C-alpha cells in the first residue's frame, strides 16, 4: 500500500479494516460502533463492509462487553472492544482485572486472551465530566495486561494492527485530542516492535519522555527550547506496560536529565514508576531528580479549567528549567 495522508482516527479505522480483512476471527464490538461508526467515527463503515456479525453494536454495559468478549476469545475469536470514553471503562474494571488479565496465567498458558480494549482518552477537547481522563496507571499496575498509546497516525495504524495480532490483552489508549492530527502514513513500512520506545528528536541536554497526547507537546517544547540554546531529546514511550526502560536509560545516559510528561495525575502516575526505575538504573548518571509534569491530584476539572490542569508548553519548559538548575 502506498503512503496516504490520514488522520489518526482514520489510521485506526484502516488498521481495524486491515485486521478484519486479514483474519476472520477478528471482531469489533462496543457501544455505537456499528451503524454510527463510533462517536469518533473510528469504526466508520466497518459494519457496512464486514456485517453485523463481525462488527457488533453492544448493549450499554461495559462489564458485559468485556465479559462477553472474554467468552468470544475462549471460543476462538479476537475481539477488539471499544469503550466509548475513558471515564466509562470502570464498570468493566472487574472483568479486565480479575478475569481478562489472569486467564492466561491461571490456565498455565492453555488459554490465550487475544483481546484489544480501545479507549479514547485524555483531555483537551472541552468535554464534559468523565470524558477527558487518563487512567493508564490503573491498568499498568495489573499484571497480565499490556498498555500502549500511540502519538501519531503512523503509530496508530501499526500499533493497533500489532495489538490485534498480539495474543496478550492490550489496553489501547487513543489520544482523542489527536484524532484529527494528520500525517503521511506509510502502510507498507515495517513497524517497530509494539513496546519499543523511540527517540523522536535527538538532543543532548535533557530527555523529555511522553506518550500518546503529550509527545507532540514534548516536541513543541524541544523546538521552543532551541531559542534558549537548549537541546532536548524527546522520547515517545509508546508503551506504558511494559515501559521500554532500556531506551530511556540509554537516553538518560546521554543527557543526564529526565522529565516525564503525561496528562494523568502525577500522584501514583506512570511518571512515578519511570522515575523510580530510571533513578535506580542511572543513579550516578542523573544530575537532577527525574521530574514529572502531569495532572494534579484532583478530579479532571470542568472544560473551562482544563488548560490549568493539563501539561502545557510553559509547564514543560518550567520543569526543564528546574531540572537544568540542579
Amino acid at each position, binding site marked *: 500500500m502506498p503512503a496516504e495522508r490520514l488522520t489518526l482516527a482514520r489510521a485506526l479505522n484502516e488498521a481495524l479494516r486491515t485486521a478484519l480483512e486479514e483474519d476472520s476471527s477478528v471482531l469489533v464490538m462496543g457501544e455505537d460502533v456499528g451503524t454510527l461508526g463510533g462517536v469518533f467515527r473510528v469504526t466508520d463503515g466497518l459494519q457496512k463492509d464486514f456485517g453485523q456479525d463481525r462488527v457488533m453494536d453492544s*448493549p*450499554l*454495559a461495559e462489564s458485559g462487553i468485556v465479559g462477553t468478549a472474554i467468552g468470544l476469545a475462549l471460543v476462538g475469536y479476537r475481539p477488539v472492544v471499544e469503550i466509548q470514553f475513558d471515564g466509562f471503562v470502570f464498570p468493566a474494571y472487574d472483568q479486565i482485572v480479575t478475569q481478562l488479565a489472569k486467564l492466561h496465567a491461571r490456565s498455565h498458558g492453555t488459554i490465550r486472551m487475544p483481546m484489544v480494549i480501545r479507549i479514547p482518552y485524555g483531555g483537551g477537547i472541552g468535554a464534559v465530566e468523565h470524558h477527558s481522563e487518563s487512567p493508564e496507571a490503573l491498568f499498568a499496575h495489573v499484571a497480565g495486561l499490556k498498555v500502549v498509546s500511540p502519538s501519531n497516525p503512523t503509530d496508530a495504524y501499526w500499533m493497533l494492527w500489532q495489538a490485534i495480532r498480539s495474543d496478550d490483552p492490550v489496553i489501547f489508549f487513543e489520544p482523542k485530542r489527536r484524532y484529527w492530527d494528520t500525517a503521511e502514513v506509510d502502510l507498507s513500512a515495517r513497524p517497530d516492535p509494539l513496546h519499543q520506545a523511540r527517540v523522536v528528536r535527538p538532543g543532548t541536554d535533557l530527555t523529555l519522555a511522553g506518550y500518546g497526547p503529550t509527545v507532540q507537546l514534548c516536541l513543541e517544547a524541544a523546538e521552543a527550547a532551541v531559542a534558549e540554546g537548549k537541546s532536548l531529546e524527546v522520547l515517545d514511550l509508546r508503551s506504558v506496560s511494559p515501559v521500554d526502560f532500556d531506551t530511556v536509560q540509554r537516553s538518560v545516559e546521554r543527557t543526564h536529565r529526565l522529565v516525564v510528561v503525561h496528562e494523568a495525575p502525577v500522584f501514583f502516575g506512570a511518571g512515578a514508576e519511570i522515575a523510580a526505575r530510571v533513578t535506580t538504573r542511572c543513579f550516578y548518571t542523573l544530575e537532577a531528580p527525574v521530574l514529572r509534569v502531569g495532572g494534579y491530584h484532583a478530579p479532571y476539572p470542568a472544560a473551562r479549567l482544563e488548560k490549568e490542569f493539563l501539561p502545557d508548553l510553559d509547564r514543560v519548559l518550567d520543569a526543564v528549567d528546574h531540572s537544568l538548575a540542579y
Partner: protein
Amino acid sequence: MTANGNQRPPGTDEPAVPDFADALNAFMSHREDPGMLQLLTPEGALVAPPDRTPGYDPELLRALYRDMVMARGFDTEATALQRQGELGLWPPLAGQEAAQVGSAHALRADDYVFPSYREHAVAWCRGVNPLDIIKLYRGVTNGGWDPRETNFHLYTLVVGSHALHATGYAMGLAKKGSDAAAIAYFGDGATSEGDVAEAFTFAAVHSAPVVFFCQNNQWAISEPVERQLRGPLYRRADGFGFPGVQVDGNDALAVHAVTRAALEHVRAGNGPFFIEASTYRMGAHTTSDDPTRYRRPAEVEHWRARDPIVRLRTHLSHADDTAPVFFEEVEEEARKLAHRIRHDTRILPHPHRLAVFDHVYAEGHAVVDEEREQFEEYHRSFADGETE
C-alpha cells in the same frame, strides 16, 4: 418565586390521596387491553369520560402544559446556544416533556430526585435555575447547583450508576421513618447496566421507597431498543419481585397519574415501583450526535405527530375550552425565559483557575496542598500575570 423564576414552589400541587392507586387500578381493569396506560389519545381526546379518568383536572393540565412549554423553550434555546459555541455540549430533551413534567408534578417537595443528564424539564419543575444546568454544559462546573435546595440531585453522567444512589437514599428515608420517596430517572439503554439490576435487587430486598422511572425514548445514542434488550421492558421489574407498568410517555396526564400511584405504593412501604414511559427523543442524542446516520425520517415523522405538547394543547383547547390567551401567555413566558438564559449565559463568569484544587477533599490532603502551592508559585513566576 423559586430559583428558576418559576412561580410555583416545586411539587406541591398534588398532595397524595390515599385511594388514588385504587382509582387507577379500577381504570386499568376496565380497559380491554391493560397494556400501556394512556389517558389522552395522541389526538388529545380522553380515553374515558372525565369522571372516570383518574386525576383528571384541567388546572393540573394547564400547569403541566405550562411547564412543558417552558422546558421546551429552555431546551431549544440551549441547543441554539450550543450551535453558537456558547456551550460545549447539549443533550436535547425535546419530545420527552410529558414524561418528565408529568412525573415531576407527582412528586412532593421532600421527595428526592436522581436525574441522569437529560432531565432538564424535571429540573425546571423542581425549581432548579436553568442557568445552573447551562453552567454544567458550558464547562464552567461539573456540578452546577446545590441539590439540597431543590431535592434534585446533580446530573449523573455514568449511565445507570445513580439508580443505586436513589435506592440507598430511599433505604435511608425508610430507616429515618420518613414517608418521602426517591425517584431515579434513566433511559432504556441504562437498563442494560449491572448497576440498575443491582439497584432493583437492593430496593426489593429492603422494600425501599423508590420509583424507577425509565424514559424509553427508543434509542441509546444509535442503538434502537431491540439491540439493547428483549422486551417488553416494563416486565423487568416483576422478575425482581416488584411491580412495573408501561405508560404512554407522551401523555402527561397518564404519566402524572401513574407516577402518583407509584409514589403512593412506595410510600406505603410496599417496596419499589418501576415505570416505563414510552416516549421519543425527537432530536439528536446530544449536539455532537448526527441521528440521520442511524434513523429513518419516517420514524421521526411518526413520532413528531405524537408531540406531547401538541397533544396537551389540542386537548386543552378543544375538550376544555382553555382560552387562547392562556397559550399566548405561556408562549410569551417561554420566550422571556429563553431571552434571559441567552443573556445570562453570555455573561457567566469564568471559574477561577485555583478552583481546580477546591473541594477535592473535605478535610484536606497533603498532596493537594503541595500541588496547589506549587501551582500558585508557578503562576506568580510569570511577571505581571502575562499569561492570565
